[in-house]
């Protein structure tokens, strides 16, 4: 397919700008102007519409089909949440408005929404307060790590290190490192949990905190979690909860009750906002009482009369981490999702997410290796290994591509790093039994062909607009832009 620039015809126009209604044009000094106009495409509106419609057909979203991308919680994105986020009262509200004298009273709906969202997420997670400012999950992790650093600085603690299990998302160590910490990786044991001996050995007074996700990236709930929290608290360390996997627990178990002190959520996972093909996300951060003073500036507060205001006078705050109040448009969608589901609905979300995952977990066990003890249920996702198929040359990546030919988005592959040939499957609660059965059948069919005719699987995908792309060439001779 041609690049949009290759479709350009000199002199062709799409949108016409409004004409200036003031008398004289301003002539800015020549040395301040660009030498030539930017080489933007010259197209009609229909040209543009056809180009992007064609591109959209070369994409695969949840609306196209089953998307069991483990750890990403690709559930259905309700259309009503899109609709309400476009209400002019939200979309056209200028963020500087509440910073004007008297301006707070003109944005009470927005401040109220942010405050109600804080209260709802705090209840769901067992935290004291949430900030909505972080603009993605990893941004939330960084915010959390900065809060941990501010807490220790305030107490005069000399802390240098964050402990992170080897099964963690790559963002965990990356985020903690750019908050100034040394990272110590703790190996997992044969059960798939953080090794307790290694953890105890690493737990020195220099430990500022531990980053964990629960259930972990293997989809398993760590039975030692409370013990870990108690041990960390004993050295005045803080427990960080990576909320990527909260879809397993809503209404069943709260991170705050387990002993976590600071956490982020991915609204584009658990709370049904779309991922947008790579954002915008939203990564609200929740904290327990003792960390509330360190939340980023500003904080939405309620007056006694029920009106809301922004508190900027927070001497212990980590300061500004976003220009304003976070990815507000995303928060609007997640709030609509929460009030639509309600108490019972959120409980059922997690129950059905776990049910769907266990159904796949059980049905695929005869066909794929499971390298951990299978005596316990999984939570919202399960991680198989393609090591059995790899013996005949069919690797996880080949199974992924064969699934593409069968109309599915593949699971997450090669993550977590501790499982060889990992395939991490997360069906989510919004998928039906028929969809799961058809996917299971496809996986079984692929497993069988892998034995009898592995070349057929290795040749996949054969139905897509492009076949296997040369990633080595892309990295060695980077072509990152079409320059005019």
């Amino acid at each position, binding site marked *: 397919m041609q690049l949009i620039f290759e479709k350009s015809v000199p002199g062709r126009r799409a949108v016409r700008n409004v004409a200036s209604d003031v008398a004289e044009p301003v002539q800015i000094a020549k040395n301040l102007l660009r030498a030539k106009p930017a080489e933007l495409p010259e197209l009609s509106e229909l040209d543009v519409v056809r*180009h992007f419609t064609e591109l959209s057909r070369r*994409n695969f979203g949840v609306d196209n089909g089953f998307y069991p991308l483990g750890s990403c919680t690709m559930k259905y*994105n309700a259309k009503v949440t899109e609709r309400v986020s476009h209400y002019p009262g939200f979309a056209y509200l200028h963020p500087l408005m509440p910073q004007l004298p008297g301006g707070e009273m003109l944005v009470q709906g927005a401040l109220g929404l942010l405050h109600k969202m804080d209260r709802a997420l705090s209840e769901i997670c067992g935290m004291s307060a949430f900030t909505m400012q972080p603009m993605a999950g990893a941004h939330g992790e960084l915010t959390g790590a900065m809060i941990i650093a501010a807490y220790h600085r305030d107490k005069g603690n000399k802390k240098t290190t964050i402990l992170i299990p080897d099964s963690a998302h790559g963002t965990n160590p990356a985020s903690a490192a750019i908050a100034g910490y040394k990272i110590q990786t703790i190996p997992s044991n044969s059960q798939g949990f953080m090794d307790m001996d290694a953890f105890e050995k690493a737990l020195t007074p220099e430990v500022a905190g531990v980053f964990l996700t629960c259930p972990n990236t293997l989809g398993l709930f760590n039975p030692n979690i409370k013990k870990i929290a108690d041990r960390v608290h004993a050295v005045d360390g803080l427990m960080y909860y990576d909320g990527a996997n909260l879809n397993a627990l809503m209404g069943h178990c709260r991170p705050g009750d387990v002993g976590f002190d600071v956490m982020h959520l991915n609204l584009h996972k658990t709370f049904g906002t779309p991922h947008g093909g790579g954002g915008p996300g939203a990564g609200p951060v929740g904290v327990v009482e003792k960390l509330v003073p360190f939340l980023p500036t500003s904080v939405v507060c309620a007056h006694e009369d029920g009106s809301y205001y922004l508190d900027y006078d927070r001497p212990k705050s980590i300061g500004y981490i976003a*220009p304003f109040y976070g990815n507000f448009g995303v928060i609007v969608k997640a709030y609509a999702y929460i009030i639509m589901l309600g108490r019972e609905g959120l409980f059922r979300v997690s129950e059905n997410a776990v049910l*769907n995952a266990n159904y796949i977990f059980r049905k695929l066990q005869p066909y794929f290796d499971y390298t951990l003890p299978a005596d316990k249920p999984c939570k919202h996702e399960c991680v198989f290994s393609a090591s059995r198929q790899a013996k005949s040359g069919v690797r996880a990546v080949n199974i992924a591509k064969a699934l593409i030919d069968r109309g599915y988005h593949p699971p997450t592959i090669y993550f977590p790093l501790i499982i060889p040939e990992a395939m991490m499957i997360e069906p989510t*609660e919004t998928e039906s039994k028929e969809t799961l059965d058809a996917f299971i059948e496809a996986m079984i069919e692929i497993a069988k062909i892998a034995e009898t005719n592995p070349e057929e699987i290795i040749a996949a995908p054969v139905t897509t607009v492009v076949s296997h792309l040369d990633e080595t060439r892309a990295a060695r001779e*980077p072509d990152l832009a079409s320059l005019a």
Partner: protein
Amino acid sequence: MPFIANTDEQRRQMLADIGVANAEDLFADIPPELRCGDLNLPAGLTEQEVRYRMQALANRNRTGMVSFLGGGFYDHFIPAALDALVTRSEFYTAYTPYQPEISQGTLQAIYEYQSVMCRLTGMDAGNASLYDGGTAIYEAIMMALRITGRRRVIVDDSLNPIYRKMVRSYTTNLGIDLIETPSFEGLPDRARIEQELNKDTAAVIVQNPNFFGRIDDLSDVAELAHRHGALLVMSVYPIALGILKTPGEMGADIVVGEGQSLGMPVSFGGPYLGFMTTREKYVRKMPGRIVGRTVDAQGRSGFVLTLQAREQHIRREKAMSNICSNEGLCALTSLIFLSLLGKEGLPELAQVCADKASYARKRLLEVPGVTMRFPNKWYFNEFVLNLPMPADRVTRELLNRGIAAGFPLGRYWPEMTNCLLVAVTEKRTKQDIDFLAHALEVILCS
């Protein structure tokens, strides 16, 4: 239950196949003392109720005002075709394009986005987006530290004060020597910057048009920085680049900015779009996702995420940034916006904004007691007025008359309590401007 497909009968079958009596058994691995009771939340609502509830909240926000608020976040016109395309769910319900064969739509769009941002800024390469204009500056600083191996950064105070606060927060734990140089008459003070430059300096950070709306040729600042082995990081307003000299022409090394003006509503602060472009030689030091063009097994052109060895999922704590999800859909939005405007349309739009702002300046200066804060030279679509009384008071009174007149600068510059930052876009009419001037006159003269 909304959005849960399985019937009770299906759930029973599935539980039987799994080999458990009920769904509760699937949670038996959670120690009982860690289970929670019912959440203290209201019961769920129907779609109709949700829409009513959300509309009621939206109605409590005043968005119908005549607004001259800007400060880096601008109210530009958004064509209908843009909404129609960006709301295609093949785009917005997809994840990050990890599987290139079924993600060519997102990948090609991001490659085209990187291309238009390079063409606009006059640079060689860009990434797939960052969260917003402020975090983009922080990422540019980190990138400059990686490139130069130095620890000192000079930030000119005509950079958006909100971004300066963000940079301060992010660098607190990193042992960076952060210097703020006071601007002179609303422009970066060259002599002061030169004084602060030394062999430890990684970068000089400037903005054009700057927060006061002033435009400048920063080529000499680039030369100054380069003479000391430092990089020039420039934050820009992409609409203005329709006509203004590009950072590339001025010799900038890293260009960042807030892309909200390219087709996104102001949306109470987000989602926005941080963009970044740079010189070819620094490509491997850039943070974030990058899309590259390559070929498939049949020699067909195609697109992939590339240079991933920089990223957190490979390098973990040694990654160049922790960023994972960025603002992909906003990048797509800006690409569609620029495609609809086109080569002739963008400069035309920029000129209309400058023309209307010029008229507004002239008209507002006719109000007795109103002067320009800085010597009246070159501006794009925003400028700072000096009022004969505190700008807070004037702003409050104008709000009561349905006008958001601009942003009083006293909040960030205590010595500028009488100063008001006024922004004009193509959406403001001559009538709006006259209305503001008239209302201002009434307030100042009463």
